[in-house]
Every structure is written in structure tokens, then in C-alpha cells.
């Protein structure tokens, strides 16, 4: 019985709600309607209005209320209808939630789920990848699964985590990927990257929907005789620098890939980290493939040009091999 990425998240929520009566959900249209993407479909029927709370259109209140409930010992999971709207609850996340523990030793075990990413012709406000706003904010954890397995395992870990976790679910993966998941319970640890393909000539470090692009590119490059290792970060903060650096030590070449725009993107942090820690192992520049520095355009030909794809990765990798 194959499970989609979206169903995997729902299963994770469901299991945690069954397991722990302190877990509850809040967000816009998540109740009887089941959420804009139907991630929470069925949960209202199962758990009722007490544990699946429909809210007004108030992202600051959604996040704020989640913080308040978390401070009182509950485990709220807030949904942003689209990750793009997280900017409306921004102060609550980066100033309230992120700093409580450091400032006054108060736990905020809250999860904010945010459907992010492009490739769905959503245009500038339904396609963004806002992860870096949070990766640069100490006190938050940031998760961005690429597979159904990880999506389920990470949402469960996020809910059990005693720190605020931002959970970026990639919209383009919701129904596009399907996997057989274990029938027994499992979790996936926060803070651990995963080598999803082993290789010896080049490391591609990436996350989210781009993992699939990296794997496709790795396949193409394999046909050309290049052995490419793909590291899926899975968690962006805290960052598993070790797994990244170990891979670079092995391959000596690295390509950083993200769907997010270039300047200030995750690739920067990775480049700095790699250059600081394993500089002597590098035998070529650290290269990046990413979206360019523009808003996400709507029209399909523009969006296609905007998004990174396997072709662009392969081309950059070839350049690096020639270097």
C-alpha cells in the first residue's frame, strides 16, 4: 500500500494525536474542510473541534496562540495555508518562539507546518521557499523532508521535540511521490542528513524537492561515467555539517543545489562550512545551482526557466568535472 508524501504527513499527525492527548492542530480551514491541500482531512471527524481548531485569517494569532498553548504544556501543530503567509506571523516565530528558552528557559514545543515551494504555477505568493528566514534565526529548528518516509518520520519527531520546529512541506511533492512505508511505528531524527545515493566523484548537497532533481542528474551523470553522491539535508537547522563534510572529503567536489533563490540561500551557509572545515580536500570550486534572484514568476515558461532542474545540474557538474 503506497503512501503519498501528503498522506505520510497526515499519518504522522494522526499517530501523534492518537498517542499524545496534548497534541492538537490549529490553522485556517483545517477542520471540516481538511485544509487547503487536504493534509488534515479526516482529523476533524476523528478528533473533533477541540483538537482541530479552525482559526480566523490571522497568522500572527495562529502562531502566537500556538506559542501560548505550548508554554502551557500542549503540543500545538499550526498550519500556514501557504508557507508564503508565514511572513504575517513572522515576529511571533523569530522573536517570541525562537528566544523563549534562551531568555527565560521556557519550552515552546510547537510545530509550524508550511507548504512551500514552486512548480505548481502558484506565482509569486504561493511558491516561495522561505526557509532561510528561519535558518538564520537561532532557537528554531527547520525541517524540509524530500520523501514520504522522512515526511512522516520527521513530523513525528517535530511534534515530540521540545523546541519550535518549522516544517516545510514541498507542495510539488504532495501527490507526486509515493512510497511503501513501514507498518510499524518509526521516527526520523531531526538534525541528521542522509546520503541518498553514494558516489565518489562529486557530492550534491540539497534538500526538499531538489533531492529528486539531484537524483535524476546523478542518473544522467552516471551514464557519462561519473559517480555522484547525493546528500539530502532533511534538517536545515541544526545543520548536519558533519555528513556534508564527510561526503566532500570523499568526493573532493561539491555542487550545492536548492530551489530557493541564490543570494542568501542555504548554499552560502554550506559553502562557508565546507570551506572552513574541509578546504584542503576540495579540488575544485564549490558551485551552486539555484533559482535566480527574482520573485517566483507565474507563467509556465517563466517558472520553468526559474526553477533548477536536472539539466542545469548536469551542466554545472560537467563544468566542474572539466575544471
Amino acid at each position, binding site marked *: 500500500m503506497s503512501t503519498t508524501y501528503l498522506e505520510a504527513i497526515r499519518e504522522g499527525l494522526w499517530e501523534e494525536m492518537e498517542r499524545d492527548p496534548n497534541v492538537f492542530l490549529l490553522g*485556517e*480551514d483545517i*477542520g*471540516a*474542510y481538511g485544509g*487547503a491541500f487536504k493534509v488534515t482531512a479526516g482529523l476533524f471527524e476523528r478528533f473533533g473541534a477541540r483538537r482541530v481548531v*479552525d*482559526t*480566523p*485569517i*490571522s*497568522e*500572527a*494569532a495562529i502562531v502566537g496562540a500556538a506559542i501560548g498553548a505550548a508554554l502551557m504544556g500542549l503540543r500545538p501543530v499550526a498550519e500556514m*495555508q*501557504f508557507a*508564503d*503567509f508565514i*511572513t*504575517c506571523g513572522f515576529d511571533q516565530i523569530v522573536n517570541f518562539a525562537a528566544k523563549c528558552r534562551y531568555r527565560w528557559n521556557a519550552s515552546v514545543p510547537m510545530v509550524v507546518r508550511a507548504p512551500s515551494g514552486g512548480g*505548481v*504555477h*502558484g*506565482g*509569486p*505568493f*504561493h511558491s516561495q521557499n522561505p526557509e532561510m528566514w528561519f535558518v538564520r534565526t537561532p532557537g528554531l529548528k527547520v525541517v524540509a523532508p524530500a520523501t514520504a518516509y522522512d515526511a512522516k518520520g520527521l513530523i513525528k519527531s517535530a511534534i515530540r521535540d521540545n523546541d519550535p520546529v518549522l516544517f516545510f512541506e514541498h507542495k510539488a511533492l504532495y501527490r507526486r511521490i509515493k512510497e511503501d512505508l513501514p507498518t510499524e511505528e518509526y521516527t526520523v531524527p531531526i538534525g541528521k542528513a542522509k546520503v541518498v545515493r553514494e558516489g565518489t566523484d562529486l557530492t550534491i548537497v540539497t534538500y526538499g524537492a531538489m533531492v529528486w532533481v539531484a537524483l535524476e542528474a546523478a542518473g544522467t551523470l552516471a551514464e557519462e561515467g561519473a559517480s555522484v553522491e547525493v546528500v539530502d539535508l532533511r534538517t536545515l537547522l541544526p545543520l548536519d555539517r558533519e555528513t556534508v563534510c564527510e561526503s566532500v572529503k570523499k568526493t573532493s567536489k561539491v555542487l550545492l543545489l536548492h530551489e530557493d533563490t541564490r543570494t542568501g540561500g542555504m548554499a552560502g551557509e554550506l559553502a562557508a562550512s565546507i570551506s572552513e572545515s574541509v578546504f584542503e580536500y576540495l579540488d575544485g570550486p564549490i558551485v551552486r545551482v539555484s533559482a*535566480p*534572484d*527574482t*520573485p517566483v*514568476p*507565474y*507563467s*509556465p*515558461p*517563466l517558472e*520553468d*526557466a*526559474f526553477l533548477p532542474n536536472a539539466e542545469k545540474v548536469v551542466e554545472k557538474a560537467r563544468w566542474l568535472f572539466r575544471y
Partner: protein
Amino acid sequence: MSAADLAHNCLYYMSLMREVEDRIERKLYRQGKIVGGVYVGRGQEAIPVGTALVAEPGDVLFPSHRDMAVFLIRGVTPGRILAQYMGRAGGVTGGRDANMHMGDLNHNIVSIISALAATVPVAAGAALALRYQGKNGVVFSYFGEGSTSRGDWHEGVNFATVQKLPVVFLCNNNQYAYSTPLSLQMACANVADRGPAYNMPAEIVDGNDVLAVYEATRRAVEYARAGNGPYLLECKTFRMTGHSAHDAAHYVPKDLFEEWGKLDPITRFEARMLAEGWGTQTEIDELRAAVHREVDEGVAWAEQSPYPDPATLLDGVYESS
């Protein structure tokens, strides 16, 4: 303008909006020619029409996502709008953004962003600018009842009232925000109940009666233009569709659709026109046919408009680039 001319205008723009949106939602979207979200204002046409017909050329309008008639009234052609939805270079944003996320300062229309009510403080700023520049324009700020829950709404209205800015706040209360009914959105019964919080006059009007909306808007605009500050107009109506083209609105009790269907602003207004002698059935039929032709032409125009050139992807992030 004579009563008959006004009536003709009202019917024309309501029908044109209806037809453009029907074409978008029921044809082009289903044909896969429009990708992404489609939100229509079916059943609510009296609101953008009754309000925007009051606007002077120097007034600045901030339509929301169910106010297409505002564009039509300000002279944005159906072709450009249809091309916008289809992501074509000839669309209002040239394919950069989708659906009602469009604006054109040549027509004094500012584009919404997706975040609801984000335009409210921006509208206040535009009103500040008009006064600063010594112009006597008024700003029209549109939103749905659900959007009044947002912090930006409160901050924008509060700032506008403190500064006594020339803004009319135009709320379409269609009783749902996506799947969320009024009772889960606010504890008060009417959006107008929020007026006193800002010491701002607030009026409730039948949003399915285009002339009532028109008259109320005139009062509101006159008040604001005279320098008295903002005015809130709550237009009671009903969303006769799902939230968007992919939403079947199972959560809405069926009888509400039936009840409100009887109050359809176009059907109702046609009857009124005949009753008042502002037009004949023949004229109405001709108007409808003309609207059809106009939209046919718009669709043809939009379909021949090319997709934007990917080579332009990087252009226009900054002025110089």
C-alpha cells in the same frame, strides 16, 4: 448621468464581469488554459460595479480578488485580463503574476498581494499621498469580511482614521472566508460593528443591489472627499461559488445557495430596469449579446498573445536591471 444611463452602465459592467469570469472558470480553466488558482465574484458583481462607478479618474482603487469589475470600469480590457489569467505576455502583469494579482497605475489601480488585507495600510499611504499632493482624490480599499481578522487590516484602518485620510473601506461580506463561516471569523455580527473602534462611520448596505451600493458609496466617498476621514461600507452578499475553482463548497448549506440565488444582482437588476422603464427587454438582450461578443474577442486576443519570453526572466527586479 441619467438614471437610465447609470442603469445601463451598471448592467453592462455586472454582465461583463460575470461573462469574463464564467469564461475563465467554466471554460478556460477546465480546458487547462489557466493554471493555478481561479477565484471569482459570481453573485457579488454589484459590489465592484456599484462602488467603482462612483470613482473619479483621480481616485485610486485597491480591488481585491472578487472585484474584477473594478478593472473593467477603469478601462482595462477583457483581453488583457484574460491574457493575465492565461499567463500571457499581453496580460496585465505580462505573465509575472496570476489571476487578480494585477494592477496598473495608468488606471490608478494598485495590485493586491496575496496576503489578505496587506493592501489596507498601503491604501492608507496612497490616501496620505493624495492629500500631501493637494489632490482631492479618494482611495477605495476593498476586502472581504475574513480579511478584517488580519493585523494589517487593523493597523491600516487605525492609521487612516487617526490621520483622517480620504479612504473608503469597502467590505464584501459574503459570509465565508474559504470554508470559514462568519461565526468562526469574528464574534461580532457585522463588520460594520468594527467602525466605532476607530470612531469611523460604518454603514451596512444590500450588496446584491447595485444601486443601493452605488448610493451608499456616493455617501461614503463624499464624506471622505470632504476631509472627514475614512468611511466603512459593509456590503452584505453571498459567495455563490466555492472559494476557488477547485472547491465544491460542500461546507455551505445548500439552501443558502438557493436563497441567495434568488437575489442574484444581475437578474434582480434586469427586473428593476424593466420595472423602472430604464430599458427594454430588447436592449437587455442586445447588451448581453454585446458582452458575449466582447468577451469572445477578448479570449481571441488573449489566446493569440504569446507566452513571455524566458529570456526576460531576470528583468525588472530592480529599476536598472
